[in-house]
């Protein structure tokens, strides 16, 4: 099903192999002719694209283009009226977010959805929720197996804390952290699920330059170290063009471009959408 690579994409592939990041594999996620409407408002119209294993795939587009709706369709928050989502060869059209999580799709949110009063550690631990097997009673009584399980999960979480360099704030309530750090905690919680595909909704919104650079580094590191496939929505074109392997462009709920950053940059309809042409 994978489409033949363009010459530019091939070059990019080679450069990637040289830099040592995991090679891009087959399609892991396919969005096929998806349409989504809220009453009379058509959020997405007939959108198709695919995501290959280990790649960083960006979704861009002007405000209201349907980017967040697209992510919400992928992880089962919205159910499209038409079209299917095919994930690791299995297609489905109505999936609960919990199911999506169980299958290995994790996400972060544009407007943070952390537990503000809880510590950084507890927030990230909550990302392990799906992987815990001991029941509430055992946990409450701190019985042996529950304790052992918690220790194992804590170790995974500590590795993530180490990875994202947030050791200094382990015990700090999330609400007291600056915005850039909260975003990092959000990413940490998503990583705690050990996802196959990570959906990032504007991971760099509202950050200053330095925080953005840090976040870019972390995203590339996640992709490199764990081989996680990443789908991200981002407004900062510099970031998108720098870190993504391929880019989908949406405008008014339709796909108007798809390809490597260079291809997209040269695409006339993309230029029109961004610079404004009368419709």
């Amino acid at each position: 099903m994978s489409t033949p690579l363009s010459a530019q994409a091939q070059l990019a592939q080679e450069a990637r192999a040289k830099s040592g990041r995991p090679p891009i594999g087959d399609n892991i996620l396919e969005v096929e002719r998806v349409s989504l409407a809220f009453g009379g408002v058509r959020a997405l119209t007939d959108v198709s694209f695919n995501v290959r294993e280990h790649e960083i795939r960006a979704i861009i587009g002007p405000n209201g283009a349907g980017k967040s709706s697209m992510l919400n369709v992928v992880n089962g928050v919205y159910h499209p009226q038409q079209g299917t989502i095919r994930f690791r060869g299995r297609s489905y059209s109505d999936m609960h977010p919990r199911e999506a999580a169980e299958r290995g799709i994790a996400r972060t949110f544009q407007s943070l959805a952390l537990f503000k009063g809880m510590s950084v550690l507890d927030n990230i631990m909550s990302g392990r929720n799906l992987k815990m097997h001991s029941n509430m009673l055992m946990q409450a009584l701190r019985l042996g197996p529950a304790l052992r399980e918690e220790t194992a999960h804590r170790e995974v979480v500590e590795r993530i804390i180490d990875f994202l360099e947030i050791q200094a704030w382990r015990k700090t309530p999330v609400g007291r952290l600056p915005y850039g750090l909260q975003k990092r905690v959000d990413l940490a919680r998503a990583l705690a699920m050990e996802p196959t595909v990570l959906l990032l909704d504007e991971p760099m919104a509202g950050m200053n330059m330095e925080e953005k650079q840090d976040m870019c580094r972390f995203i590339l590191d996640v992709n490199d170290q764990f081989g996680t496939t990443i789908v991200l929505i981002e407004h900062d074109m510099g970031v998108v063009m720098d870190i993504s392997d391929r880019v989908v462009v949406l405008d008014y709920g339709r796909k108007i471009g798809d390809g490597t950053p260079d291809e997209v940059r040269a695409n006339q309809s993309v230029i029109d959408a961004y610079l404004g042409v009368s419709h």
Partner: protein
Amino acid sequence: MDRSRWSGADPSRGQNVLEASMADDLTGLDTFPKLLMHHARVRGDLPAIREKDLGIWQTWSWKRFADEVRALACGLAAQGFKRDDHLAIVGDNRPRLYAAVCAAQALGGVPVPLYQDAVAAEMAFPIQNATITHAVVEDQEQVDKLLEILPQCPTLTHIYYDDPRGLRHYGQPQLMAYDRLLEIGQESYRRDPAYLETEVAKGGGEDAAAMFFTSGTTGVPKGVVLTHHALIDRAAAAAKMEGLGDRDVVLAYLPPAWIGQNIFSYAQPFVTGYCICCPESAETVMTDMREIGPTYYFAPPRVLEALLTQVSIRMEDAGRFKRWLYKHFMEVARRVGGAILDGKPVGIADRLRYALGDMLVFGPLRNVLGMSRVRVAYTAGEAIGPDLFKFYRSIGINLKQLYGSTETSVFVCIQPNGQVKADTVGPAVPGVELKFTPQRELLIRSPGLFREYYKNPQATAEAKDAEGWFHTGDAGYFDPEGHLKIIDRVKDVGSLADGTLFAPKYLENKLKFFPYIKEAVTFGDQRDRVCAFINIDMEAVGNWAEKRNLPYSGYTDLASRAETCDLVGECIEKVNADLAAEPEIANSQIHRFLILHKELDADDGELTRTRKVRRGFIAERYQALVDALYAGQDKVHVEAQVKYEDGRTATISADLAIRDAKTYSPAAAKRAA
């Protein structure tokens, strides 16, 4: 083991200190690797070094430490590292990097720690200068830097990294993981278990133990070579003085390339067997310190100041009752805290009041600072403000000053318990001889002196004369109790017209300790009296003015107000009163001053980029003002060009008032005291 080397090297001094200080008999243990083997034998299960990893403190016992060093040394040897080679060590405080220091020494090599926050270009010189072939580094950041300068440093053929993160795909042939090096070492140790012991036994106290590059603010950096004997002797002398033992704990949080860090977290633990703890990261130092509760602590004044600022800010946010409690008991502490710590007589009522304060305020405060268990704390590096210094002492932390440098293995002077003053650095540590040149330059002779500046005989000869005196470049004198007082660099010290000492920086520092004074420039060299330019601290004086309902439109306006002049005048009078009590510099009292109409600025060339006053330049630029000060005028008109940050220039003009400050006769000051 080899005792002859000890006797060759001033045995009377070095060995006595060693024998007398420890419960252990350290005779013949004249190198760090020998000391390590000793601790592994006698206190093998006690903690040697701790590191917080994945949120948990991981401990290496002395035995584990010795095993690590053995494997690592064998690995390095198998990789071609040999006697007299230099091993670069770049990274934060990490157990494995400390193991690398000892492994290099075990093979008769010389560890060269480099500042981990230096940019790549700054590392090129030391690596070339010391023809470094092997380097042990912490992580990808350091690897990247070394790879960047590889073309300029062709001798560097082996780079070992501790943390493999991000380095998986690096293909450079020079690179090898620390873990791999360890495996090689273990293999080689199994093949030839006796090899390392022989190598360690070959080493002696007069071998070079480490090389530290001085920062080199003037000219190129110099590699200071220190021997095992020098470091061990000084570490032991200070440890004996403070009664350090194997139950002490230290937090290693300053750069390992700095001699002090090496003394406190390598030399002294190796001499006494105490445990050092490596924080998780630079950001977690505060929390880690609270968890560890060190008993022995070093902090430069800027760290102490930052801590106090944090405390003050948090107190401002506290409830009314707590604020009152804090204010009340801090007043008690200020009055009697220092005296109680020094064991001086204090009335019973004050003792009770202090005890109550200790329960309610000082104890919890020490706990928050992570200093509950601190027995000995040092500060050094720059002049510390007396208020800052007294604050820590008043809440029961035994903070003391010391004097030393890289060239002297740190310990030259230490304030003994009970004899602590805010403005001296204490008497000489046993074994150290001090004297002054006629120009008041401090000369030091000590078993801790450096051997040489590496490959720089000319600089060595300039710094160390034929009789073994080290010329510090610092000017100072002894106070009546024989405590050393450092006042300035020799090259900056002048004399008044009557020949008495004039130390501008010393005066300026005294002025700057007042929160209202941001910068000060004093004049007096070859003149009959001292005058000063003052820069007020906009924030502090601004707050002060607001509380008094004094309106002002900006810096120039605030600086020119009579009330501000009065405020600064009071500060200067206090300094004068202080100076009058010190016979050596009583003549340096400030007779006249003016408050400058603008803040001194590096953009205008008045300060260096590190915010040091460029006295000569300022004297030239404001010649008219200096003349007015000495001509006895009470007002002077000034016009000056200022450069804005965007490059535009403008002219500021103002009338500056010149004030006379009250001065004291030395005799009157003595009576008052």
